[in-house]
């Protein structure tokens, strides 16, 4: 039954794991502010934040591959934004000029390369490296008309500012993603939810029922694996009745999906009613003041982390306002 691991939580016993979830959320927000306040060209500050990140990652004792996995998903975005910046930002010193000639043979070769990439993408390890290679190969091909006349020629100019900005964007996004991963990898979903409930408390002043919202979130989290199992069961039951979700025309496809959706709706509603009854039987009243089993408590290390995070953010802002950076 427990083959479905929900969320990313990875259990180790580390300093970061033991921190209060509220501390982790607040520090994450502070670090996001920090990352965006870093001025351009300030490699020292950027280096400092990378070093800080690596230190925290090391402290979590979570295998590095976990963090790399979260980065993998945005590799395309990173590569795209770097090339975009590098090729189209026209300020600063000129670093490199590449002559580009468009001819029919060039276009054809480029298309062939792209098709080959799309076709073999599935089988390639380290996809993004191949994507970088593809872009470079296409730029290289377009330098000279291989066969025939050049239809049109232009120049790609790479400026220093473009490369620097591109680099900053990449590092910033990577920092953001890894910092967020630290939160989700080291905090259980229920703890996260409790912390969010606490952080949303001020909203009660404007009559937003935060405790009810938090209860809804924790119930949803609890039922995701259950509903997942139910879906699997219904899928198999309908497969036994000859549904093949891989084939069929559009009309058959619609019936197939309905044959999954309606039972799932009914099961969800039934579970919801049962749960509501069970909660009421145990005296749950929406919005009433409740005590908690797991009390959140700030410890010494929490204050230390919060003061440190707040300190570096304020320090950086003060430096920027005073034009010291």
């Amino acid at each position: 039954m427990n083959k479905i691991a929900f969320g990313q939580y990875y259990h180790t016993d580390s300093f970061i794991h033991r921190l209060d979830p509220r501390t982790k959320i607040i520090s994450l927000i502070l670090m996001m502010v920090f990352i965006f306040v870093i001025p351009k060209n300030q490699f020292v500050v950027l280096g400092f934040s990378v070093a800080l990140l690596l230190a925290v990652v090391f402290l979590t004792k979570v295998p590095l591959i976990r963090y790399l996995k979260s980065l993998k998903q945005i590799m395309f975005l990173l590569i795209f934004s770097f090339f975009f910046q590098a090729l189209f930002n026209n300020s600063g010193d000129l670093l490199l000029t590449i002559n580009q000639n468009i001819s029919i043979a060039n276009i054809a070769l480029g298309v062939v390369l792209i098709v080959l990439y799309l076709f073999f993408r599935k089988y390639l390890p380290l996809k993004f490296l191949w994507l970088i290679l593809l872009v470079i190969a296409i730029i290289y091909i377009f330098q000279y008309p291989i066969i025939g006349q050049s239809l049109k020629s232009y120049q790609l100019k790479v400026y220093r500012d473009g490369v620097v900005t591109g680099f900053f964007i990449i590092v910033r996004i990577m920092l953001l993603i890894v910092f967020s991963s630290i939160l989700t990898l080291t905090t259980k979903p229920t703890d996260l939810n409790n912390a969010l409930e606490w952080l949303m408390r001020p909203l009660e002043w404007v009559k937003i029922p935060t405790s009810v919202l938090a209860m809804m979130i924790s119930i949803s989290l609890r039922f995701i694996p259950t509903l997942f199992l139910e879906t699997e069961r219904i899928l198999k039951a309908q497969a036994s009745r000859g549904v093949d979700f891989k084939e069929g025309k559009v009309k058959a496809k619609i019936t197939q999906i309905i044959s999954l959706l309606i039972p799932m709706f009914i099961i969800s509603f039934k579970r919801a009613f049962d749960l509501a009854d069970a909660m009421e039987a145990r005296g749950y009243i929406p919005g009433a003041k409740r005590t908690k089993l797991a009390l959140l408590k700030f410890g010494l290390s929490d204050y230390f982390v919060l003061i440190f995070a707040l300190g570096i953010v304020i320090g950086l802002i003060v430096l920027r306002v005073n034009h010291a950076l």
Partner: protein
Amino acid sequence: MGINFRNVSFRYNKKASKPTLDNITLDIFKKSEFITILGHTGSGKSTLVQHMNALLLPDEGEVEIFGKHITKKYKDKLKDTRKKVGLVFQFPEYQLFEETVLKDIMFGPKNFGLSDQEAKSKAIEACKQVGLGEELWTRSPFTLSGGQMRRVAIAGILASEPDVLILDEPTVGLDPVGKKELLNLLEDIRINTGKTIVIISHDMNVVAKHATRVIVLNDGKVVYNGPKLPLFSDLERLRSFNLDLPDSARIAIELKEKGLIDFDELPLALEELRKHLKLNLQGAGYE
């Protein structure tokens, strides 16, 4: 022709050291058998039956289902396999979704390529088999009682006319009358159509009364595969499988131990017990 397991192993979690099914070799033929699969929770019963219509593919070994060799790498279509081997899941009432009972029962046959007209006649036939009256055919399945819904679900599989009918704990959640009716229905289907029925059950009375063959699973291994009487006669072994005796056999053993009435053969159904008691009591001069 039938379902033949050859050294089948399967694990849900590919990294787990202990497989859910462990080197299973087993034959199920289409010859009007009533097979019950026993075993405590987590012994792999549901996993085993899901291999019988290729919902799960074996990690090792091979399952031959009516001439089709299903191995780990099997990629072809499985529709006709699933037509031949009908599988009714636990709490099958949750798989209903159509507007009317009849339409829901027609869903299977239509998926297996029958026209609306043919599917409808098959559905009506199945309705009659499971005892769903005509007044229910046009009702929404969601307005029926639990027992009726289960009949609709079973009819939905029967309408595709499988050669082997497998039911995963079909009597769970039914009242005693509903339970008895369902089992008699399965028995009738077996006798009238010659289909092989395979059920997973925890109820020893069911096993003792209906089964022609018993398969016991323990930790993913087949530890018993044969007729029911030798199984229930060997108390030591029965206990090692974590299984109970049927009520009638328990009463008989109690009577024997107290030295009241002797039994040559354990009665496995209450009717047998009653007959034996009657004979003995009459012999002793009681009326």
